[in-house]
């Protein structure tokens, strides 16, 4: 069944994109509703997962443009993500955790298209070709957006580290 197979993927995509747990649950429900209503339009020649993620991506970006989530704050990283890793060097572990929190909050500074590309590539580990299909964009555009997103996040991380060193 669709819910069993895809709910986790869609929910995580919505949460990574929106940054709010409650919002992500509502968005997932809306996406499934949209999905059920669009099933008759599915072209059997297409990859089903990519088609489904395209529906999710379109819905999330449309909602983003309508409601402007960038003005909202994201949930704290540790609200729902638990640290399970154990580090030999506690200091190194603390830096990594801090980096994760900074990058997680930094996602809010990315535009919707760059944010989606970064989520698909760097969080979900998808291939560039698949991302291009999901986002209906040329491969070159996808690569350039991902590079811009990474640079933006790296600069946010840099600022954060500089501020921490000043303290």
């Amino acid at each position, binding site marked *: 069944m669709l819910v069993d197979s895809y709910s986790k993927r869609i929910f995580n995509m919505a949460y990574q994109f929106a940054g709010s747990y409650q919002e992500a649950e509502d968005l997932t429900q809306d996406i499934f509703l949209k999905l059920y209503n669009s099933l008759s339009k599915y072209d059997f020649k297409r990859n089903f997962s990519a088609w489904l993620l395209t529906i999710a991506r379109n819905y999330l970006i449309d909602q983003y443009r309508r409601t402007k989530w960038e003005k909202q704050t994201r949930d704290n990283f540790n609200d729902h993500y638990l640290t399970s890793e154990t580090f030999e060097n506690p200091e190194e572990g603390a830096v990594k955790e801090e980096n994760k929190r900074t990058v997680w909050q930094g996602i809010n500074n990315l535009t919707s298209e760059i944010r989606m590309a970064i989520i698909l590539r760097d969080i979900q580990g998808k291939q560039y070709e698949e991302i291009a299909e999901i986002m209906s964009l040329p491969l070159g555009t996808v690569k350039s957006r991902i590079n811009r997103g*990474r640079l933006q996040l790296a600069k946010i991380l*840099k600022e954060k580290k500089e501020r921490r060193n000043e303290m």
Partner: protein
Amino acid sequence: MKCKTIEELLSPYLEDELNPEEKGTVAKHLKTCENCSLLFSLMKETQESLADIPELEVSENLLDRLYSIPRKKKRFKLRFPNFDFLVRPSLQPILTVATIMLIMISFYFYGPNKSSIDKSISRKIGLGYSKVGRLYAKAESFTASLGEHKDNILVSLKNIKLPGGNED
């Protein structure tokens, strides 16, 4: 090469997608440019941090909500394509009139007053026949009386002097 150009090549460099020449240029630049080198190492840290974000499980509450989403009902469609023309808008007035006629006919055949309707119809038809018969009889008597006075009428017509006529 300018730092801006190198920045554009950092991701492909990180993912080892550059040709040997470009790769060499970027590596050389990173050795000499502190800013770009720092940016590159931060980009690596960023990528590692993003890759470390785990997948969350879906809550029971959300699963219940997802399972209860009703499937959209299929739109009504006639199964036999040959009868599709029946739903065309242009045929609607004709179908309406036909429906009204059928309702009236069904009232006549299946209504409780069929015999009284029959009687009133036959009475009306009988009255019509007798009216026509009377008119026919009147017309016959008028023709007969006209035949009797035919000669007198002809004489009277001959004696009429029309004004402006030739007097011989």
